[in-house]
């Protein structure tokens, strides 16, 4: 299989992730879309690792690290969402705009 196919997949995943990040109102879906982005990265990492196949297998080891990082982020993210829900009653991202500049 030529290297470009997995890369196309990873770009697709990354693109959808970015779209979800910027458009979705629900915070949890935003987190999910970030997961998508990270998985996109993982796919490309593994693909490159197979391509290079060098001694340290750096690509795959980084992929595993990325997975752990994603897990940590989601853990913390959900905690913050929980707090947000308790404080505001809703986890809509575009409603959380109390902190802003007032150019009056």
């Amino acid at each position, binding site marked *: 299989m030529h290297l470009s196919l997995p890369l196309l997949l990873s770009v697709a995943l990354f693109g959808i992730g970015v779209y979800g990040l910027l458009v979705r109102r629900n915070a949890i879906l935003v987190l999910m879309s970030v997961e998508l982005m990270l998985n996109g990265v993982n796919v490309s990492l593994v693909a490159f690792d197979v391509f290079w196949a060098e001694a340290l297998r750096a690509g795959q080891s980084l992929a595993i690290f990325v997975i752990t990082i994603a897990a940590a982020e989601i853990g913390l993210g959900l905690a913050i969402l929980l707090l947000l829900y308790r404080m505001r009653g809703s986890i809509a*991202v575009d409603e959380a705009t109390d902190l802003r500049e007032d150019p009056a």
Partner: protein
Amino acid sequence: MTAPLVMVVLPAVAAVVGLLLGGMSRAAAATIAVAGPLAALVVAALLAAEQPWDAPIVDAGFHGVLQPFPAATVVDGLAVSVALMVCFVATLVQIYSIGYMKDEPRYSSYAAFISLFTAAMLAVVVAGDLLFLVVGWEVMGLCSYLLIGQNWEQHEARRAAVKAFLVTKVGDIGFIVGVVVLIGTTGTTLIPNAVQAASSDSTVATVASGLILLGVLGKSAQFPLHAWLPDAMAGPSPVSALIHAATMVAAGVYVVARLYPMFLASPEVLTAMAVIACITMLGAAVIALVQSDMKRVLAWSTVSQLAYMVAALAVGSRDAAVFHLLSHAFFKALLFLAAGAVIHAVGSSALRDTGGLRQSMPVTFMTMSIGLLALVGVFPLSGFFSKESVLVAAEHAAEGDEVVAPWVGWLVLVVAVVTIAVTAAYALRLWMLTWVGPRRGEARPIHETPPVMYVPLVLLAVPTLLFGFTALDVGALPTWIQANATQPLATPGALTPGLLTIALSVTALLVGVGVGLRGRWSSGIGDGRSFLARGLGVDAAYDWLAVRPLLVLVRWVTEFDSGVIQRTVSGVGVGTVASGRQLQRTQRGDVQRYVSAALTALIVAVVITLVAVAT
């Protein structure tokens, strides 16, 4: 401290002491005031006594551009004679002022400024260093401003003071730039060396003397910078006598005499001087004819007489000019002091209020008459001889053996003779309106002025009578002026009157008297408002050419400054703050908008870097 410097310093010290002890008694102020010029007179006399003087330049300090301790002085006939005159007139004026300014609250500052003026005039007279000359020159202008504005409660005194200072200052631009050119080209500030070097190179001489002439026109009230002198009459009469008749106005002529070799090296400047002198001479005399104020008549007469001196210089005879300068000083000071006495008695200087004062003020009448005769140039008086010497010089030039073209000589001769006639006319008119005929104005007891005022008149009358004879061969004046001169000039003895000139002047005199008598002198006083009386529109010309454009320029500059520059500067500030507010609108609080902005910026960066690296 050499003798000339002492002469300068004495009145200056008197001035400073007078100012410092401002509030002391009048008597003390008066004694200090008189003591200053008197002491200077003594020193001048001592200097005169020990002539022939050895070294012309008494170098009292180092000179040169960067060590300008400008106290180098020169002692020669010219300097000493004029110094004697200045001290003599100054002392008499101080004495006269004691009486005249009896009820003046600010007498001590008045007397101090007169002493300061005397010091400045003496500085100009004995200056051997160009910078010392400039210092004296400008301080004189300052004192004239201060003294004209002595009673600054009145509006026209304030206006006249400022006008006098600014008009002379306009002339002084030329003077200072001329001195700068002189110092710049010759590299030295010592007058003899500078003049020597300048007269060798004709272009430098023309430029320098042309510029310095501007200053002279301002200070000696010649056309077109003469309009300040008649207005300066707003000052007290003793001031007019000393400053605006005898000394300051003559300083311009003196400076030209001092730098004469340089002027001789530039015929064009001399021709210009001649033309200006003729215009001023005749114009001023005619205007004097229609003045309605006694002092303004004398002021215009002074402008006209100064033109005689400038004309004499123009036609190549420094000695005639200096001779007329000295004689004019005496009789014009006499006339002004006499006029002051009349004003003191009558209470106003307008000719409408005088008339028939012969019996009540005999001494003043006598001295003023002598003065007027001298002014007109009647035989035994000094005025006759000095005017004749000017005519002789003009005739000499007309024969073409002078630096200047012959036609200049003829022009000066003709205009001089005509002016004699007009002078005779206005002198006679003044004499009649003051002394003869019915008493006009409100009747008030007129009595002779106190001795402290008429003694100076008598003392001045003496030189007016006798000074003329010094000009003849037997007299010492011609050799005196030449004595010790650094550059001896035309043959001495040129001052004796010639037959042709005597004939011409006598006929002109008679014509003038005739006109004077026939004119309806009693009713024709006029109110002084007519175009002629107001100085042929020169004041209006000043206004249009200088004052009005200046004010427009000032308004434009202030608007430009507060408008354009100020607004750009504060605009920059306001603009920055406004852009700050615009940027704040990007910070609306929605995190997804933040991230989208960041990512788009990133994409743009990636694309641009790709393009940049690719090329």
